[in-house]
């Protein structure tokens, strides 16, 4: 999205503004204060602010790459957005504040990005004018450089006041540094540190279809389309469409949403969505006991989430597959490091190759992949309960309560006890307590069918020398092993309803409490053969989803158990 060089017949005389200058006296003990800049008060950009969602790390990164090019590096630590219990990080971003330490990092990153953008090698790509004097301020040229950058960064045109402000900032920076580009760099750093960039600020306008209510305005729609579908900042096409008011025109909106869901860039959006839905941030903290699991190492850890994402993207996008078959497909991708976990030959030393498991492997879909199996295990043992809970909560949107605080876990944790060699036996001892049994009845039966895969998802024939019983159940469905579980998941309506409600939550940044909306979305999803593109097309084009709710919804997604 680099700005093409255009020759604008705009030429202003050198700055007539009086710039504020820092004055510092060498022996003063008190903090030095700047002489205030002479600025006009700033006014709000557009309309009423109805939501502020913090930019995620990946959105920040792709925005910088799209705006400034892939050779501008983003280096720094991102303050993580906290995941609210049972919700998406996308919802957490609606609540996310920026702490002092977090802002310090954003400030440092902004300075690094700005310095790269206006260094000698890059500046010409972002400026179509040359300052009259490279060692002094130049209002006209600064405006021509900063206005388009501001439009990309704030995802809407700068207001007149904002533009004047940043131009002035560039001028006040050019003075003491005796460099026009240093001044521009400072102004860009200020934009990158602004809440207008760090927050996706959603603004609303009166909704003609529902008098007295609000709907998202055009620029907020452009941003939501880009961030949801492509996980990046809106491009010229979207910003122009917003300027033309096309995004509140249902027909034009549908045409744009259709183009975007069919684009190869949809992969970035789908990956970000599932990384959020499947809690991939947990991979950052995953640790395994190297004595128990010698096949686990850093290369394996790096490959585990990527294998799942490649499977998802290949199945749902490349093959336009049915979402439900994500629980049964045996197709995946392999690296040399993963070959150790799966004990398979990998034809290359570096990189990924397509791979298909044999039916005898009993690895069906996402739940048969080492990433899922390892993430929902303990550091030294597998856990039918953690796996079952993840299946219920992440894949079926069925919340499982936390265990009470005073539970005695001795029986389940003692893997050395010869009398209780398998997890099934240990869990059944643990569940003699009816308080525990109530929840374990929900989690363990599906989880137990995966017990032939150990705590890193490697196949095992036996546990502590004892045979492993892989009979399982999901609601009323009874089955054996991973393939059976995959079939049961495939047949369960809960998975499609769950992903539909997550897509709504992901898009709006709010948990969707309107069951009718979830069901109508699922119905449209079903009508199109459960294709992920059609699900997101539905979510992005349904007028209801652009309406601003009257009050913030409270509570988690609820879908009835065992449909």
């Amino acid at each position, binding site marked *: 999205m680099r700005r093409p060089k255009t020759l604008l017949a705009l030429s202003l005389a050198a700055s007539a503004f009086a710039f504020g200058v820092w004055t510092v006296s060498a022996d003063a003990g008190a903090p030095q204060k700047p002489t205030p800049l002479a600025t006009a008060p700033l006014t709000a950009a557009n309309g009423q602010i109805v939501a*502020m969602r913090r930019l995620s790390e990946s959105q920040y990164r792709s925005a910088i790459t799209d705006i400034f090019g892939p050779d501008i590096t983003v280096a720094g630590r991102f303050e993580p957005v906290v995941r*609210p219990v049972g919700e998406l990080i996308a919802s957490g971003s609606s609540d996310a504040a920026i702490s002092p330490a977090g802002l310090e990092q954003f400030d440092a990153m902004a*300075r690094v990005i700005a310095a790269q953008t206006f260094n000698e090698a890059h500046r010409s790509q972002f400026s179509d004018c040359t300052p009259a004097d490279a060692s002094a301020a130049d209002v006209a040229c600064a405006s021509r450089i900063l206005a388009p950058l501001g439009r990309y960064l704030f995802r809407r045109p700068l207001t007149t006041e904002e533009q004047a402000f940043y131009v002035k900032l560039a001028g006040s920076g050019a003075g003491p540094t005796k460099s026009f580009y240093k001044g521009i760099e400072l102004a860009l750093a200020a934009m990158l540190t602004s809440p207008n960039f760090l*927050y996706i600020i959603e603004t609303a306008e009166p909704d003609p279809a529902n008098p007295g209510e609000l709907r998202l305005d055009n620029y907020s729609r452009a941003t939501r389309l880009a961030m949801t579908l492509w996980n990046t900042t809106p491009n010229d096409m979207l910003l122009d469409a917003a300027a033309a008011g096309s995004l509140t025109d249902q027909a034009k909106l549908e045409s744009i949403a259709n183009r975007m869901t069919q684009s190869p860039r949809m992969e970035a959006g789908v990956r970000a969505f599932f990384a959020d839905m499947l809690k991939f941030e947990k991979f950052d903290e995953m640790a395994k006991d190297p004595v128990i699991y010698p096949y686990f190492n850093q290369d394996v850890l790096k490959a585990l989430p990527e294998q799942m994402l490649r499977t998802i993207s290949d199945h749902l996008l490349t093959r336009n597959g049915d979402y439900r078959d994500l629980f049964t497909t045996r197709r995946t991708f392999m690296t040399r490091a993963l070959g150790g976990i799966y004990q398979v030959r990998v034809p290359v030393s570096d990189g990924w190759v397509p791979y298909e498991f044999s039916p005898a492997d009993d690895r069906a879909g996402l739940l048969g992949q080492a990433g899922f199996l390892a993430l929902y295990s303990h550091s030294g043992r597998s856990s039918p309960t953690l796996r079952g809970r993840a299946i219920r909560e992440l894949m079926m949107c069925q919340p499982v309560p936390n265990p009470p605080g005073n539970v005695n876990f001795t029986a389940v944790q003692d893997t050395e006890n010869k009398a209780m060699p398998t997890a099934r036996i240990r869990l059944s001892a643990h569940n003699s307590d009816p308080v525990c049994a109530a929840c374990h009845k929900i989690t363990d039966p599906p989880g137990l069918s995966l017990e032939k895969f150990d705590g890193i998802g490697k196949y095992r024939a036996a546990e502590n020398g004892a045979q492993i019983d892989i009979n399982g159940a999901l609601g009323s469905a009874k089955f054996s092993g991973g393939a059976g579980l995959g079939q049961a998941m495939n047949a369960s309506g809960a998975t499609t309803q769950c992903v539909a409600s997550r897509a709504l939550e992901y898009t709006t940044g709010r948990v969707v409490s309107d069951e009718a909306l979830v069901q109508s979305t699922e119905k449209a999803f079903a009508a199109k053969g459960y294709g992920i593109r059609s699900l997101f097309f539905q979510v992005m084009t349904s007028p209801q989803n652009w309406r601003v709710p009257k009050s913030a919804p409270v509570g988690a997604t609820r879908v009835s158990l065992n449909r």
Partner: protein
Amino acid sequence: MAYDLNRRTALRGMLGGAAVTVGVPLLDCFLDVNGKAMAATGNAMPIRFGTWFWGLGVNPTRWFPTKPGRNYDLPPELAPIAPLQNKISVFGNFNVPLDGAPNLPHVSGGAAVRTGRALTAERGLPGESFDVTIGDRIGSRSRFASLDLSATGDPRNSLSGRGGGNLNPSEISAANLYSRIFGTGFKDPNSASFTPDPQVIARRSVLSGVTEQRQSLERAVGAGDKAKLDQYFTSLRQLENQLDAELTKPEPLQACMVPRKVPGLPVNAEIENVMMSHELMTDLLVMALACDQTRVFNMMFNNGASSLTRIGSTITHHQLTHEEVLDPKLGYQPEATYFLTKIMEAWLYFVTALDKVKEGDGTLLDNTLVFAHSETAFAKFHTIDCMPMMMAGTAGGKIKSGLYVDGAGSPVSRVGLTMMQAMGVPMDRWGAKSMETNKTIGEIMA
């Protein structure tokens, strides 16, 4: 950061999961990040970074602890550090994968630790060493960008540089070091006038610019989002305060005293002489730090292929590691190990010297991060996996000390990345090929 998250999560829990944003008490946060020294005076104490290098590694089973965490065990060759164990962390099982590049004896290992890259030429460094990167961040305004010292008398003994043939040469004589620091050109920091950094001034103006947008945003925002904006602008004010502190003339450096001149010493690699030279240089360096003449340093105790000898003997430490037979009963080489014991004593001297200087509520060591490392794990066979490394000091509270960290075979570059981040270098990924990493060592990040 972890603290921040826990606190917010806890508050969230108290409010029953309702979607309410609660600002974290800011002062706590601020202290957590910036340490006590700042709270005491209102001004930041200078934070320093340095390295301490020794050649020829260790006898791994007699040096590496086995128990991760605090109060780690001290095998015989690590035992000398006992008096300051709670201020020294040890790192084991961090590897140096070379991806097929040859292991150049005594060269590849040290270069990989410093640059996160494998050497392919036999000279220089494969990239910028992290001490230089850190120096650009914290040391650019002090009188010396860094002080680079070698106690064995070889000025080319250095692992610090911008990459390629660029190496920062080492000072080899304590007497020369004295005149460089305290001779003509020395400015008493407590009497000198103060010139604020124009870069900081410019940054400060950027932040005040952002602050001015507050009103316009707040006018259009609902109550829920206003809480977020308040938090943002409070954070911004903290950042402004930090910069204001940097623009303020610092408190007097109480520990700064001009030391007495040091005697001239022969420049050679005899261990007793090297020990003495190292002590003199250490004492001068400590005063240079206390007087804020530099914020970055590199001390090379000996060289990679160590030319240390014992007085009256001509056989070198390096020669011993290769020629001395591995005693199959002891499992190590007793003669070569003599030097390792001396090296650990010297390391303790160095850390103790930093810790003796009081600064604010703590010591100079507390406001410093010293990273010690070698270039081989077991020198006889030039092994470079499981590189022996240590850290002392907390960089003003940014790093936890007194831990044994087991890297479980992960790349050594994690250590460099962690230190650079702790010293404020904006960097999330470092190293090349198998040594490229974005995983910091969470255990030691405060």
